[in-house]
């Protein structure tokens, strides 16, 4: 049974200029003890997706259709504010992009780490002990002394590790990590990924890892969900999607990554065109206006076609992969 199961999720925001259809028919699972990556470019709906899961959509946003089942029985779209509050932090924890913004600057790290355990029922000394153990696990040197220091006294990489320690303190069933390494340098990024991997195994939780960095996702995640303009265009295991992409957007996106170009080239591939305006979501395939393989049928909504076990692409041509190096 998956820890999280999103089915046919639609989210709309009402704005002055009309309704914005931010997520359209989003479906995917986060199986137990697995790390699932969500990739996509700015504006593809990654943050809306997280907010929908956490029940933190802005006031003008609503889930218009679909369900988010947590541990098989609770539909997060139907829970009340109090029930959601009990779930957040305890069973679903989050790590955000900006570690400095996640920690309170006027409280010491120790105070904050004790405070997040307010529902644990432990004594203050026990909470403090757990806090320092957790800091040791995320490799903060001299953990005991670190508890009485303030966030500004730590480097960026260390504050992010502290944020991870805090998120995993209550041993949640699901950790949502929203671009946790984007603000870090390459060497720290790698260290943070390795740490996440290690802690995930130790705690046995599932991780939903949001990133636009394809390299990080390839390395850390087992499954991947590719989003474009509020739709899941492709999902599957990392190997299926990265080695045998079936949606033209995934193909283009992988091509664009300078890291994939082993040979030095003066002209890097790009995806011509722009993300469509979601206030007037075009009929049919959302990627069609930028797609080099579009044909007549693309004016209709493409099906979610399964091309391998768990490998699904929302494209009419998913069963006919394009020949390698067909373009660009």
């Amino acid at each position, binding site marked *: 049974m998956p820890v999280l199961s999103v089915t046919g999720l639609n989210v709309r925001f009402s704005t002055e200029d009309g309704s914005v259809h931010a997520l359209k028919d989003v479906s995917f699972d986060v199986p137990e003890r697995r790390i699932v990556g969500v990739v996509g470019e700015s504006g593809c709906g990654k943050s809306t997706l997280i907010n929908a899961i956490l029940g933190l959509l802005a006031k003008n946003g609503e889930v218009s259709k679909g369900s988010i089942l947590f541990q098989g029985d609770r539909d997060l779209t139907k829970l009340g504010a109090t029930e959601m509050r009990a779930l957040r932090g305890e069973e679903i924890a989050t790590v955000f992009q900006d570690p400095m913004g996640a920690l309170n600057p006027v409280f010491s790290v120790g105070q904050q780490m004790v405070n997040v355990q307010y529902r644990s029922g432990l004594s203050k000394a026990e909470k403090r002990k757990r806090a320092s153990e957790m800091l040791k696990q995320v490799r903060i040197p001299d953990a005991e002394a670190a508890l009485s220091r303030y966030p500004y006294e730590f480097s960026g990489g260390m504050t992010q590790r502290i944020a991870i320690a805090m998120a995993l303190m209550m041993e949640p069933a699901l950790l949502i990590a929203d671009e946790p390494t984007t603000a870090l340098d390459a060497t720290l990024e790698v260290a943070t*990924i390795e740490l996440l991997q290690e802690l995930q195994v130790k705690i046995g939780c599932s991780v939903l890892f949001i990133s636009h960095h394809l390299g990080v996702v*390839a390395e850390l995640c087992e499954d991947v969900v590719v989003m474009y303009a509020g739709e899941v265009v492709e999902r599957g295991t990392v190997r299926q999607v990265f080695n045998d992409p079936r949606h033209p957007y995934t193909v283009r996106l992988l091509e664009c*990554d*300078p890291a*994939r170009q082993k040979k030095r080239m003066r002209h890097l591939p790009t995806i011509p065109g722009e993300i469509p305006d979601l206030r007037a979501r075009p009929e049919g395939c959302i990627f069609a206006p930028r797609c080099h393989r579009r044909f007549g049928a693309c004016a209709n909504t493409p099906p979610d076609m399964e091309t391998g076990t768990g490998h699904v692409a929302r494209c009419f041509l998913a069963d006919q992969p394009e020949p390698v190096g067909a373009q660009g």
Partner: protein
Amino acid sequence: MSDVVVKVEDVEVAFSVGRIGRRSSILGVAGVSFEVRRGETFAIVGESGSGKTTLARAINRLRPVSRGAITFEGRRIESLDRQAMKPLRRRMSMMFQDPVGSLSPRMTVGDLVAEPYRIHGLERRNIQEETARLLSLVGLSQDFAHRYPHQLSGGQARRVGVARAIALDPVLVIADEPTAGLDVSVQGEVLNLLNDLRERLGLAMVIITHNLHVVRHVADRMAVMYLGRFVETGETEAIFDAPAHPYTAALLSANPEPDPDTARDRISLPAEVPSLLARPEGCEFHTRCPWVRDICKTTPPPCSSVEHRVLTCHFPLARGERPPERTG
């Protein structure tokens, strides 16, 4: 000789720190030398806090230089005053880090692009015509002239930054993290644009970045910076092919690649980056170097130069050398 646009010799930039009465100073840039020729792209890479941005700002004198010489188009500029620098700023332009943040939110794109002319009293030129020319040069349609920065995407804002930078026909463009925060597909666009302009206008470019994949595709030569010094300088392809400094090797190996099947021979760096307040004795990288030997802890390595490669290390690596196994 006349080909050299900018030459930096042994430049130091000091910051004063500490309280009044106990002032001391730290070196953000600690003795850096390089030169950039016409039509060439020179990349400076390194982690946050290594002094990349400080160096960039010192070159165009946005920061005072505490020691060393900077020669721009054959003229020493390190001690020119504001007044004397102003005409030179037409010849050297800067692209600042945050694409949207570096544009005034109250000005339209048209005003922003024309601002350099106004600042340099060149309003006799037909500004409308110039604006139109610049916008088309960076691939933005004329309608953009009436938009405000908040109405632009990151990539579009970056293009406006490029237009501003090339407005006054400079010979040198310094780009600080030109692709940071941009999506992969847009990164390619911006880099292609910079490459095009460099070729068409014969610009010399200095690109500052921590994204190594980017460096590989745009830079002719590169320097790796650590704690305010260059540890390795040379031809980009040669360095990627066989890094000789352990820090370069570690940085290159820390680059996550979007391929789930790459074999990962990662060189992990223990410990955190040392503080500039307490620079390590001997080789400054020895606290994190997997190859460290006794001499590294006491004697600063000499600067050696072999086949266009400048290196500061006691024991340069052979091609593909792996760190020695450590016991204990």
